[in-house]
């Protein structure tokens, strides 16, 4: 793959909405280079040796956190795990104080997951370390968006002209938002599918199409990304029952018969088997769900590497300006 020459300047990864097509492609190309590390006998590169990465997770997560930890380890960084189950609204140390305390210990990169949209941006304004967003409320989950397009690009070569459906709880999904930005910037056509009660406000202003019928669109799709129904984010029932939801929006074996033979089936995990999709589909030949997880590692290595590079670039610039 011929790597486009751009000068990477960003020391934070807050959201894909802020990035250009070229920048997203640059991250994907960098990730491609890191894939090789995981195939070595000794699965390590010295890239971030002496750097400290903190996983600052205010929400439950297993795969994203493990993926970031492994990515940092493969780049030889030291990793601190910081898990805070207390929500920000309850009394306790503020997010800002927590971050400042960690920074006082000399950390270089903060990987943050938080239930409040905007928490990573808030942090990046107030501390010097690099900030990587590992999911903030209903706002963005940029590394998931990146690994999704990485996975598609790897199999289909390009996203240009592809029809991709994102199905489910769009309103509460940070994955959907990051996917929309990444996929449309790379030239794909995105169709959001789900009941109107799970669509966000002014969805028509996003660069997407909207459909309330999975059956109507499934035949045209090159990729289908089934979102997890997040019961914990729903205050009121946006649909009458799980059974009715599955009837209209579940990816069943029957429904798959209407799809293109080479459709890619994706899911950000963890799957509610039998709700978003039947097990036969999740484990079937079109499923790339586990490849998404594998690719997530390379993508997160690339992100950690690049934000660190961005920080070094900025430090250098400041030093030069200081002289």
């Amino acid at each position, binding site marked *: 793959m011929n790597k486009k020459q751009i000068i990477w300047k960003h020391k934070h990864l807050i959201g894909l*909405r802020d990035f250009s097509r070229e920048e997203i492609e640059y991250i994907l190309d960098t990730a491609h280079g890191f894939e090789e590390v995981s195939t070595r006998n000794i699965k390590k590169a010295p890239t971030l040796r002496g750097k400290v990465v903190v996983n600052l997770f205010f929400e439950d997560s297993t795969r994203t956190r493990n993926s970031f930890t492994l990515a940092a380890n493969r780049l030889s960084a030291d990793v601190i795990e910081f898990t805070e189950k207390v929500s*920000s*609204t309850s009394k306790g140390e*503020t*997010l*800002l104080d927590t971050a400042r305390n960690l920074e006082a210990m000399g950390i270089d990169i903060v990987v943050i997951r*938080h*239930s*409040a*949209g*905007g*928490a990573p*941006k*808030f942090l990046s*304004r107030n501390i010097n370390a690099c900030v990587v967003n590992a999911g*903030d*409320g*209903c*706002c*963005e989950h940029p590394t998931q968006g990146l690994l999704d397009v990485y996975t598609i690009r790897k199999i289909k070569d390009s996203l240009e002209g592809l029809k991709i459906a994102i199905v489910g709880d769009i309103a509460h999904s*940070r994955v959907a*938002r990051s996917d929309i930005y990444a996929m449309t910037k790379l030239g794909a056509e995105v169709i959001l599918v789900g009941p109107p009660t799970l669509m*966000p*406000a*002014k*969805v028509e*202003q*996003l660069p997407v199409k909207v459909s309330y019928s999975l059956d109507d669109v499934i035949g045209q799709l090159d990729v289908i990304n089934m979102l997890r129904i997040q019961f914990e984010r729903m*205050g009121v029932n946006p649909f009458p029952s799980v059974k009715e939801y599955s009837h209209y929006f579940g990816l069943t074996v029957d429904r798959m018969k209407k799809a293109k033979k080479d459709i890619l089936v994706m899911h950000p995990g963890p799957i509610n088997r039998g709700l978003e999709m039947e097990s036969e589909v999740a484990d079937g030949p079109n499923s790339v769900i586990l490849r998404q997880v594998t690719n997530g590692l390379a993508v997160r290595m690339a992100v950690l590497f690049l934000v660190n590079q961005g920080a070094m670039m900025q430090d250098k610039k400041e030093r030069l300006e200081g002289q």
Partner: protein
Amino acid sequence: MSKSLLIKNGFVIDPANKINGKVNVYAIDGKIADVGKIDKQADTVIDAAGKLVVPGLIDIHVHFREPGDEEEETIASGSAAAVAGGFTSVVCMPNTEPAIDEATSVEYIHRMGRQTRKTHVYVMGAITKGRAGEQLAEMGFMVQAGAIGFTDDGSGVQNPAMMLRALKYASMFKNIVISQHCQDNSLAGTGVMNSGYNSTILGLPGIDPLAEEMMLWRDIQLVRKTNMRYHVQHVSTARSVELIRQAKKEGLPITCEVAPHHLLLTDDACCDYDTNYKVNPPLRTEADIKAIKQAIKDGIIDALASDHAPHLKSEKELEFLAAPFGIASLECALGLYIKALIEPKIIDWPQLVSIMAEKPAKIISVDKGTLGKGKQADITIIDPDYEYTVDVNKFHSKSKNCPYNGWKLKGKVEYTIVGGEIRYSAQEN
């Protein structure tokens, strides 16, 4: 011993008495004695050449946080902020801790206001006990203690039967207004900003404009039934404006107010998650601002009110989801109104004075808002063209949660005179 005050050479604007020109104002013993081409000896003489002399400005919606949150604001600090902003009267909202829902609290606020000797401090009591929306508060006793109206401000009365009962009951008292923060909680949900494209991309829960409009529509039906005088707080949407326009056309006893942030800021301002822009009702869209400005031009809006809502830095220095709602703007409110309404020529000065003094006085049924003979000498003297930069560190308010910090505004308050006494002078500040 009588004390006299002469304000000479100023340009006097008194819409109630149709005065709009260069005349002098003479006051004896705290009351207006004469307005005209008079020249008398006085104990105090103010040369107001090049300045506007207007009836003392009235802000019918402020939060002075006392009792309960004195670290954010007190009657004393809030009153100092008020006179610095040119306001000779303010109305404190009852969403304190505990809520102002009985006569003793009302008396307490009045007493603190008097002792501070800055601005007149009026009180709206809570409609329901503890602002919980379940049982009527002792409105009668609060009226006797001097409350000028009632509201559960901070939230609306959710239950329509409860609201109907409140309007009916209150209608037996003279010169009282029932005022509502229109927000249907079932529609507002856990929202923290306007529901729209921006809330979608920011991943923050939105407050649908319908939350405001639905309760307003409901209340209009209740007002039609009871004919009780009703006031809509901080109107923020284009449809709310239309509902009020129709209700007024119908002749219903409805008034309304608009806050400066709903004239100058849109939800675009939330895009950096700066919590100084987190306010309730939330910042809306350009279309809403346009409709509100048109309504002001058409005389549909009766009052401008700051909704001055002070909060500590530590409270605002949080994630957007977690920070409290509110903007502190009492001290720069006049400049904001000038920027929003006078500079783009939406209205002229007499119209501005009308909705900042004359009409607000009528809403709260106080004999103020004019420079008529015999009225209390509450007067604000303004240098309309003086440009200054908002600096929160110079605020008299205890809180600095003001998104206008650094803005260049016109309209400097030179003197704030309450009952014939100079309670604020720019030279001494």
